[in-house]
């Protein structure tokens, strides 16, 4: 297993390098950089702008800049945000906890919906419960997050005035009050993300359970006289969940993508809204770093999926 992990990490490295090359090239090819606005600014003399460009090496060839960036990155120097006037790594670290909390809570909600609904649907396929659940799953899966977000804001913030619709990271209250306010403001974003994920996972759980429930060993368990409940929970679900676990790990990157939109709607100060701000304000070091963090997350979760798969299913060996 240790051997396998090492080899997988070695395979992941070239992919990460490839992704960073792609990102860097795209950003370097594109018109506009942090200093292009400064050039147009009449208060900045052209010599100063040229000196600054030189100091940050913006006129060097692309490959030189790439290697400089790569080595700086490896040494833990993620660059400096020209717009926010703060180190990029501090900026990102300050934003990550909120994103992780919202995403984590929404994933738990999604699993709480998807597991029971999917299993019950598959245990009685084509029953009325299954039909209703499938229809709702398809509806939930077709609702774009930005629309659900606006709907929830409209109903719960504007009409009913129950929940705040701007997410604040700087709540001054302490103790229980702090928890209460945070939970209140997190309800809507978590619901939006959780419902979308829950709907699509329900479909996967259902088909995974259906695949297993037809196997011979399940018939054996039934003919031994086990209760249906025990057959489903002990024999079917345990095996059916193997592909589902992989799927959950593999869809994490998509979830982070969905979080970008949710953070934008509810104005959550997470890394998704940081990325959008950085893009709109041409803050190249931040764009590069956040995108790279996203790429690392994709590869990390792919790796976790592979490891989990082998651990859950002994039929798959690490070779």
């Amino acid at each position, binding site marked *: 297993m240790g051997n396998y992990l090492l080899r997988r990490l070695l395979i992941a490295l070239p992919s990460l390098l490839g992704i960073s090359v792609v990102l860097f090239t*795209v950003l370097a090819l594109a018109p506009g950089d942090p200093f292009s606005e400064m050039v147009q600014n009449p208060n900045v003399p052209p010599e100063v702008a040229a000196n600054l460009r030189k100091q940050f090496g913006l006129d060097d060839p692309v490959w030189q800049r790439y290697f400089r960036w790569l080595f700086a990155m490896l040494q833990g120097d993620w660059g400096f945000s020209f717009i926010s006037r703060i180190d990029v790594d501090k900026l990102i670290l300050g934003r990550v906890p909120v994103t992780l909390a919202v995403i984590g809570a929404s994933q738990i909600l999604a699993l709480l919906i998807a597991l029971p609904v999917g299993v019950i649907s598959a245990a009685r396929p084509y029953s009325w419960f299954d039909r209703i659940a499938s229809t709702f799953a398809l509806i939930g899966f077709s609702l774009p997050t930005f629309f659900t977000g606006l*709907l929830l804001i409209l109903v719960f913030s504007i009409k009913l005035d129950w929940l705040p619709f701007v997410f604040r990271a700087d709540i001054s209250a302490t103790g229980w009050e702090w928890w209460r306010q945070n939970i209140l403001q997190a309800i809507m974003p978590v619901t939006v993300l959780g419902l979308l994920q829950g709907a699509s996972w329900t479909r996967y759980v259902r088909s995974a359970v259906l695949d297993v429930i037809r196997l011979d060993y399940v018939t054996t368990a039934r003919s031994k006289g086990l209760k249906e409940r025990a057959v489903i929970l002990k024999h079917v679900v345990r095996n059916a969940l193997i592909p589902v676990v992989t799927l959950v790990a593999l869809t994490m990157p998509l979830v982070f993508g969905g979080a970008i939109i949710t953070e934008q709607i509810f104005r959550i100060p997470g890394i998704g809204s940081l990325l959008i701000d950085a893009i709109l304000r041409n803050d190249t070091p931040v764009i590069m770093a956040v995108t790279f963090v996203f790429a690392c997350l994709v590869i990390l979760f792919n790796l976790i999926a592979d490891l989990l798969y082998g651990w859950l299913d002994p039929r798959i060996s690490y070779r």
Partner: protein
Amino acid sequence: MAGSIPASAIASVVATAALPRRSVSPWAEAWRRFRRHRLAVIGLVVLCIMVLMVAFGPMLWKLSINDIDFSARLNTPSWAHPFGTDDLGQDIFARMLYGGRISLAVGVAAMLMAMLVGVTIGAIAGISRGAVDAALMWLTDLFLSLPQLPLLLILIYLFRDSLKQAFGPEVGVFILIVLVIGGFRWMPVARLVRAQFFSLREKEFVEAARALGASVPRQVYRHILPNSLGPVIVAGTIDVAAAIIAESTLSFLGLGFPPDIPTWGRILFDSKEYLDIAPHWAMFPGTAIFLAVLCINFVGDGLRDALDPRRVL
């Protein structure tokens, strides 16, 4: 109990209904199976109505999409403006009819692009094993592990202006969005086609064609490709829905089409600030996106039942 659960809800019904055998073409057969999926048929009908409305609506509904009328700001729906007006007094119904063309066209065009690239790469990888296959699959995996939404945003933001200058605002942004969305959605299709090719390549009928001296291109075009299309069509249908959502997402984040091209996502983006005083403004485009996506997904579901190669029959 093994195998007692049919692969699809309609399979057993069809099995009994088809007892008096007549020769039917595969497409007629698929259409008959598709009609059994009631929600899919409803979805198809609603979708057709939407397409007809955006195709011919702007010719019948004569109000201009950018006539500014400050005396009719943020009006709620009425007979003069069935969907109300926005903050500039523009008729939302007219804007939605016009913008719907672009929203739906982006979906279809991005799907075609994804299909074209995916089928080509999957077919080449599937037929030519060895190094070519390995290289193409590495490329597919690399694309799969790119962070899609961030890259999508960056690409659009960075290249919007240069393409606008080259092709004009409407066509330029359209080309860019289709290329970018299509360019990030071909990987599942490529994998699907490759897997289909792997199994079909060894089937007896292909072997027979090979034995009769069919060239590799003929084997592919005549025998393997037509038989692998079922799942690809299903994936393509779902891709249209995904592309529509992707375009609306970009427009909603303010990184899609410019304000004078009111796609549904763009109208939603503009309406966001007025949610408290003019909720109708956000409801109509949002519902339109949702309805289009839902109908396409239902149609895709019906097609899966109709074209499933593992169908029980």
